[in-house]
């Protein structure tokens, strides 16, 4: 029994802390262990998660942690966190209009608030606040509507007038003489940003510690069915037998669905983002404007992180059109003329899977044992912990948690959409 | 009489470029697909509609611009009186085209503002805000294109060496003209 205990302890990862850093400094950091192993796939798992982004890794983590499913794997066609997890602008907020969305995103936000400690990995969740601006009278109505709904849903959103906007973020051009003056805004103080890579790595390390196999460079090539049930997946590393497959493949969801003979209400479109060269702190919050389409924050490294919009065509090339980037910077300079001499350091694109109602799908499918978590569009990062938790619940129990019940596939048939898209001036 | 208030009141002159509005000029959009439509237009106006993309045709009084396989703009080569907005051409076409169900005729005289540009820097200006490739266009008299300039839809009709007519929707015209002047001032 004692021996057993020793083995368990050895398999436990050494805790990260300032003390471990100092201790390791004496051995020139030669003795750090692997954050996660790189195993070859086993023949069979109790469940396989397809997609090693933040959502997929979180799903595996919670399956292992909360549902005691240890014999599971995450298969990733490239490297973990290399898709939208590592390409987004890291905004986290929960000030959504509809009850279902507010419930979903606030569930995630609550987990974010303790995530670094839970994972013993600093994901640098920084609650520097997210401000949404109004530029026309309908924006004002929409933002007030959302703020009232948020307040009644227990979400900390407040409405700000123009002076209060200026006070909270002094560098915004709030002159009434600009083309689309700032008429007001909302502020969620609990909202903010996090370090995207760390989220993937932290979940990977945590899942690995509980015995989850994280298998990189393993692309799914087919889904094997036994009648109406899942039997396993074909991969570039061979066949893996399993009765439960949770697909969290973002932009590639339709590609995987296709392998199972399913069609999804998704379109995969290019979404671009860019960063400036790093500068000393100049903006200490996240500001989003839907009407002029610009959102900006500043990373801990000092780069302005700027999100652009999506193109309107399907593409898997991870590239978007220059017009989108130009349009975004156009809006940035309208709101922040002081940034005119700042320089774009890098721009890149991701592939986002967008639902007609701009809300995600966390759902069972018509195939038993096949689950999809997709359709996060441009706003999936903020939901990562909640999405993983709820998807794990859905897979483990073969039925949704009440928080994600509304985000089923059947809503496209019944018409009971969660229309964040048409409902309000919400940038995702 | 009612006052006639057009948008662009000034003629602007720069080195190598002059711009002003020509008005009032009758403009019609005509639509039709049938062969009879084309021949009815030809007979009514003594003008063959251009059927090749990006081209135009011209009679003494009228110019016809190809806009799409079933759409043309016809505009008068002369200015009319501001005290009257009854156009013979429109009436004629209403009778010979609309009433006979051959196609559609719509008066767009004030839908579009006609800006006339002259000088050797026309295309230098256009290149500052239009993605259209003017390399061949500028050499071709009568060439027509619909494109964007400063994010605004425009129709450009190449008149001559160093002269084009540019059509823009009225509500956009003041903004565009101001933008064009800003560009022209630094060419």
């Amino acid at each position: 029994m004692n021996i057993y205990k020793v083995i368990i302890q050895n398999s436990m990862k050494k805790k990260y802390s300032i003390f471990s850093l100092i201790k390791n400094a004496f051995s020139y950091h030669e003795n750090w262990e692997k954050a996660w192993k790189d195993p070859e796939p086993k023949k069979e798992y109790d469940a396989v998660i397809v997609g090693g982004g933040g959502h997929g890794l979180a799903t595996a983590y919670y399956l292992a942690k909360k549902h005691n499913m240890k014999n599971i794997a995450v298969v990733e066609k490239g490297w973990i966190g290399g898709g939208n997890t590592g390409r987004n602008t890291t905004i986290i907020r929960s000030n959504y209009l509809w009850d279902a969305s507010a419930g979903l995103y606030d569930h995630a936000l609550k987990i974010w608030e303790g995530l670094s400690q839970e994972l013993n990995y600093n994901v640098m969740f920084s609650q520097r606040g997210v401000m949404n601006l109004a530029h026309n009278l309908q924006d004002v109505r929409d933002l007030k509507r959302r703020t009232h709904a948020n307040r009644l849903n227990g979400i900390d959103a407040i409405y700000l007038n123009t002076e209060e906007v200026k006070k909270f973020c002094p560098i915004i051009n709030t002159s009434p003489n600009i083309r689309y003056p700032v008429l007001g805004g909302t502020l969620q103080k609990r909202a903010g940003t996090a370090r995207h890579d760390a989220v993937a790595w932290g979940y990977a390390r945590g899942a690995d510690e509980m015995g989850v196999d994280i298998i990189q460079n393993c692309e799914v090539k087919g889904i094997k069915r036994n009648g109406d049930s899942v039997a396993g997946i074909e991969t570039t590393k061979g066949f893996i037998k399993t009765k439960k497959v949770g697909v969290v493949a973002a932009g590639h969801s339709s590609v995987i669905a296709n392998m199972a003979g399913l069609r999804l209400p998704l379109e995969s479109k290019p979404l671009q983002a860019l960063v400036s060269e790093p500068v000393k702190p100049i903006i200490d919050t996240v500001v989003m404007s839907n009407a002029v389409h610009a959102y900006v924050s500043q990373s801990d490294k000092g780069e302005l992180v700027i999100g652009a919009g999506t193109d309107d065509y399907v593409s898997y090339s991870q590239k978007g059109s220059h017009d989108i980037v130009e349009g975004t910077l156009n809006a940035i300079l309208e709101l922040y003329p002081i940034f005119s001499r700042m320089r774009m350091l890098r721009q890149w694109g991701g592939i986002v899977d967008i639902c007609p109602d701009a809300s995600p799908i966390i759902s069972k499918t018509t195939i038993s044992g096949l689950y999809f978590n997709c359709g996060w569009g441009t706003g999936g990062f903020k939901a990562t912990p909640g999405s993983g938790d709820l998807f794990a619940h859905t897979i483990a129990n073969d039925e949704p948690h009440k928080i994600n019940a509304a985000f089923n596939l059947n809503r496209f048939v019944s018409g009971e959409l969660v229309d964040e898209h048409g409902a309000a001036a919400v940038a995702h | 009489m009612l006052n006639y208030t057009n948008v662009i009141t000034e003629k602007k002159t720069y080195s190598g470029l002059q711009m002003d509005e020509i008005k009032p000029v009758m403009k019609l959009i005509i639509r039709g697909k049938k062969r009879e439509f084309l021949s009815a237009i030809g007979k009514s106006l003594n003008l063959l509609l251009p059927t090749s993309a990006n081209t135009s045709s011209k009679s003494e009084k009228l110019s016809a611009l190809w806009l799409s396989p079933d759409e043309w703009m016809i505009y008068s080569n002369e200015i009319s009186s501001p005290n009257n907005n009854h156009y013979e051409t429109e009436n004629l076409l209403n009778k010979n085209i609309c009433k006979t169900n051959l196609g559609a005729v719509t008066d767009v005289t004030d839908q579009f503002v006609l800006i006339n540009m002259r000088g050797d820097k026309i295309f230098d200006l256009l290149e500052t805000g239009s993605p259209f490739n003017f390399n061949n266009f500028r050499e071709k008299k009568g060439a027509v294109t619909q494109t964007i300039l400063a994010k605004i839809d425009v129709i450009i009709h190449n008149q001559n060496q160093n002269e084009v007519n540019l059509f823009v929707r009225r509500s956009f015209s003041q903004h565009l003209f101001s933008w064009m002047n800003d560009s022209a001032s630094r060419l």
Partner: protein
Amino acid sequence: MTNNLRVKSSKFIDETYKISFKFNGTTYYGYKGDTLASALLASGIHLVGRSFKYHRPRGIMTAGSEEPNAIVQLHINTSRTEPNVRATEIEIYEGLEASSQNCWPSVNFDIGGINNFLSPILPAGFYYKTFMWPASFWEKYEYFIRKSAGLGRSPIEPDPDIYEHRYIHCDVLVIGAGISGIIAAKTAAKNGFKTLLIDEKSYLGGSTIYQNSEHFKINNQISSSWLEKEINEIKKIKNLEIKTRTSVAAFHGYNFLLARENLTDHLPLNQRNNKIRQRLLKIRSKKVINATGSLERPLIFDNNDRPGILLSSAIDKYSNFYGVACGEKNVLFTNNDSAYETAINLNQKGIKVEAVIDNREEVDSKLIKEVENNNIRVYKGYTVVNTSGYKRIKKVSIMKLSLDGQKIIGSKIYINCDCLGISGGWTPAVHLFTQSGGKLKFREEDQVFIPNKSFSDQISIGSCNGDFTLDEILSSVPKILKEFLNIKKSDFENLEVHSSFNKSKRNIWLLPSDKVIGKTKPFVDYQNDATAKDIKLALREGFRSIEHVKRYTTTGMGTDQGKLGNMHALGIISETAGSKMGELGTTTFRPPYTPLTFGTIVGRNVGKYFDIFRKTPIHDWHVENNAEFENVGQWKRAWYYPKNQENMHDAVQRESKAARDGAGILDASTLGKIDIQGTDASEFLNRVYTNAWSKLAIGKCRYGLMLNEDGMVYDDGVTTRLDENHYIMTTTTGGAATVLGKLEDYLQTEWPELDVYLTSVTDHYATISVCGPDSKKIISKVIPDLDLSNKSFPHMSFKNSKIDKIKCRVMRISFTGEHSYEINIQANYGKSVWQRCMEMGKEFNITPYGTETMHLLRAEKGFIIVGQDTDATMTPIDLQMDWIVSKKKYDFIGKRSLYRSDTIKENRKQLIGLLTENPDEVLEEGAQIVADINKSPVEMLGHVTSSYYSPNLKKSIALGVVRGGKSMIGQKLIIPMENKQINVTVADPVFLDKENKRLNA
């Protein structure tokens, strides 16, 4: 320090044109043609900045856009300030003021330098492992992290400069005007291609142009002389446009490229006003020739980052091009022949070269011989193991390399120096090629990635294609061009080339040290302070992919995007992980190639040109009459017309009252207007609107509601039948373009068999709406000939008419519930007609009203505004507009969706009226509506969509949507605000004149 570092006059520098500039507050001098870097070096200054993480002193390392260290802030505390400018790129001008960044209080004494001593506990990724306790403290730690991060400072004033765009379409674009680019441009242009040649430098000719060695000759002329003649020739070619100081930033698909043309950054400040600073070239080229050259690699050894350590090629350029000696006691360290060129050049100019350290054991070439013949000591088979000197290199220590290159042997030799040139061979500049989607292949013999496959019509030539030596270039380039341009012959075939360069190279990614790696600092990414040991740590911790390592260590994430160190990072990963370089892949080179100013990207689309400003034909009148404006889409609409310092509320109350008591006048010109003609026009309307149209009589108007295919309300408006086959449709202001687009879509793709033509006439007409009990009297004065009797001209009908001789259409339609007329007249007469209405209406107190009053008046009548009372989740049934949904029609857009299981539910959110208990209390639009405030969680039934104080009803009225609201008339509900609860009663949404008596009053 001796100031005679100008060693020889250079034809590229104008020594008669002296320029003074300031660096960190001290005045220095340079000459026209100098960069800030060359001028500083000429003044003996190497220490320019501090590194990102450890704040180590750093100096000028290169002579080009790959510079990682020497980045400065220009004109701090002015509107023209600019952070992170590379001293190696900025040309000096009179008045230039530059300062060091990321240091406090000064670059010489920087408190942040303490990080260098803490570096043992700050390995790669340390922040992921700490700052987690206590949980609530992260933001406090973060405050300090953020403060010490960043490089320069953001400007804090608006930019005084102007930027511009230019679209260029050409046949051939040549990127880079080195020897290969010059040959390519001349070949293309001479063969009739419209050609554009671009180079980031201020001069043409690349590195060949300052090549003055007898060792490199073309047709028996020194290569630079030969090239100079070629350059003079190409300047005369008509169809060749040449752009210098222009840097290609991005190479996108379909040969679309972005380049930044720098126009004023080299001019004295007082010569810049009103000039375009930078121009963004948007280039579409049929063919692209990459002649982007190559970058010299550094070598990776302990403390390879000190001020005074430069690339060997940079030392060469500073002496040959700028006439500046980087040091007085130079040592060169190389793994190839390039450094010998530098040694020979320095020696010729009388600049002392102490030694050349070559890691190759058995090498020989003409260049090496010449160096040795000049009594310069060459240490073959040696490596530098360490350097010393805090703010300037003082000494190098070298040791013999083992045969396999993995270890050092023997004892240390120390060589004093004040400058160390390093050369690790050459890396083709393939950044743009890969941006365009091009795939690379790895060439084992000299460990370089070279272009392989591309998706667009492009080619790479010269050293960016892996042909580094003069003879290779001149033999390969003409051949490649002939094939690429499909031409028969080239002027550049059969040149006689003489080159002494020996290609051998001994590539060792990480040079061995006499210390354990944990104790060393061999920098791979200088700017971000990422060392070889950081890379090894990342690998040890399981970060195996290049992208993981890059992100974990921040290698290649600096403002230089790792132009110098990325190859070494790959090499070290490959060696450590035991994988092959070719299989490892490369990191993605993301655009832009060099950072691109936001202002340049945006061009002139700032300020008043940020977005289009649409004006109605009556706009000027509104301005003259003090209207406040509201943005509706791109339109500016008159919002209200304050009189005598009225506030908005008072103005709107006055306007609303006047419109119902006498007459009001509204500019409705922004509404979308679509002319619909064709024999199937009625059938078309049947399909696009929810109601039936076939039976509408000629001359009559009808209100229509348009749905999306998902059954939700999309747009609304009145459509008038002008003739048997002719209608005019009006749309909402914001919906005009999208409605036309949607209708065209259905016509062209779903119903091409319909004979229908749509033409937008929104701008053709001015639309003037006159309403109120006195409207009839006013219109009868404006258009005396028109029969306005209810019989001849009833509500919902139209008449053709004339005002003076100008034809117009008059509709009797009403959005206020009042007796109203809408005059549609050609736009250029609109203002005049408006003025006439005002004049004729004076006796009836005709009052112009804006959109706010319009909204109030229609709310009194319970008319919806699409987009305000609807939100893309409302069906016509939800709006209590069942009457407009035809039960008889077989189909219309959106019909099927109205019968889905959710859309047929009884308790959907439905439009209702709301009356407050206190009639003076006006609800907030957007406020939520609940039945039971004590329920937890609170159930929100809906929200307030429109809310006003009605001066005509003398009470507060509101519209809202409430779950199951239809059946709740009379029921009490609560509006919970932050600080109070407001009691309301559900009411019929029509508050005024339910019987529509006023329409004919």
